[in-house]
């Protein structure tokens, strides 16, 4: 109603001015009395009001639509309109919407193709890695150890690519089941044993017995691998330990804590470690920080419905807790 009145204000003003002028002209001409001009004024005002009322009712839905902000995309451009102006606007909106949607569709399609391509590419790259791994499996000595290390790095890099790409299509790609927390941790530490041994940093696993969690094994394994990689990367001294502790909170939620005895994170960096591409002070002084590790950890955990906490003290180490 407000919008309608505002819209029609100039018309009402013009009308009143016109009424005054015409009445004045006739009065100065001396042709008619007060009653007559009052009567004429009343009659024409009534006509105007009738006109405005008609306009208002025929365009009411149009005005209502203009005043309410859209909360979601609407294909049709709204309900059909009575007046020609409103109807053509509706058509314009609908057409514009269709064009946008076509554009959006083609981009979405491109993105899906891209993810598909990345998936295939990563798998294609993994085959030669596996073959190299098998070839050097039974060999010992510095060159083969070095090749093995680099292989592990390549594998990790590929996994990061794969999981980053898949994160967007997470909904199609996860399977939640009951898992034994201790088994998962043992499996992942065992998978990363080369890295542990190479760094001369060893895991200490302390699990309260019988903790089961509800999660996706593949994604959780990736998360733990990230945490282990971080813990080892930022532990410089040999002979340190990475502690894995699993326990139940008072509220009955299972917690897995991964605590290293590494360099720690400066307090200034701590709030931002879960941001994508954030590397911080440590990232700049160590190699191979992509800033993606903890970001992916956070994203994956939130999709799985787990919470992630981090606490750290420079020189003492960092602890990451996953609350299931």
């Amino acid at each position, binding site marked *: 109603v407000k919008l309608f009145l505002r819209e029609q204000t100039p018309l009402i003003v013009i009308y009143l001015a016109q009424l005054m002028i015409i009445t004045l002209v006739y009065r100065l001409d001396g042709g008619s009395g007060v009653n007559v001009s009052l009567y004429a004024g009343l009659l024409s005002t009534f006509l105007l009001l009738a006109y405005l009322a008609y306009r208002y009712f025929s365009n009411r839905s149009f005005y209502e639509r203009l005043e309410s902000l859209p909360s979601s995309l609407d294909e049709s451009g709204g309900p059909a309109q009575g007046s020609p102006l409103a109807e053509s606007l509706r058509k314009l909106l609908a057409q514009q919407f269709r064009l946008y949607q076509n554009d959006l569709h083609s981009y979405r399609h491109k993105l899906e193709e891209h993810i598909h391509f990345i998936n295939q590419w990563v798998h294609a790259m993994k085959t030669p890695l596996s073959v190299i791994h098998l070839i050097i*499996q039974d060999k010992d000595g510095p060159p083969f150890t070095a090749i093995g290390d680099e292989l592990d790095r390549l594998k990790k890099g590929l996994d990061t690519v794969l999981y980053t790409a898949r994160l967007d299509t997470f909904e199609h790609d996860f399977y939640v089941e009951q898992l034994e927390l201790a088994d998962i941790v043992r499996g992942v530490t065992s998978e990363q*044993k080369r890295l542990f*041994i190479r760094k001369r940093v*060893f895991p200490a696993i302390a699990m309260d017995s019988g903790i089961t969690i509800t999660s996706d094994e593949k994604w959780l394994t990736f998360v733990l691998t990230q945490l282990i990689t971080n813990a080892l990367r930022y532990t410089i001294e040999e002979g340190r330990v990475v502690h894995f502790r699993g326990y139940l909170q008072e509220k009955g939620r299972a917690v897995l804590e991964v605590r290293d005895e590494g360099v720690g994170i400066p307090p200034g960096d701590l709030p931002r470690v879960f941001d994508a591409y954030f590397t911080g002070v440590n990232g700049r002084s160590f190699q191979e920080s992509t800033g993606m590790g903890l970001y992916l950890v956070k994203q994956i955990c939130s999709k799985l419905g787990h919470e992630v906490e981090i606490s750290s003290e420079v020189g003492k180490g960092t602890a990451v807790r996953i609350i299931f």
Partner: protein
Amino acid sequence: MAKIKSHLRRAYGSYAVGANERSLAVSGLTLDVERLVLSRGNAKVDLSHTEAKILDELMKKTGTIVTRDRLLEKIWDDQAFVDDNTLNVYVTRVRKKLAAMGIQDGLQTVRGQGYRLSDNWGEMT
């Protein structure tokens, strides 16, 4: 991927040795990996799983250096907690069992690199 691995394993890996019942012999010293028994002549001694793994690796590469890293990798899965000391302890135990077979100094430490098994004990006389 798993399929390729299993094929390769069948061709080159541990299954291929399965024909001779997973036992290793070096200069009269025999390691039975299945039964966890080390024997030389009439002398026999039982081994733990971890000790057997260490000996298995050393005997396969008799005369060459096996790095500590590699041995650690081998024994990793049997242990709740592996570190450098774990390996030291097991190497000591293996040495004792070799001594029980009458083999002294067969398992040598190569400083900064690893261990080496030299078959300098000769055949049983």
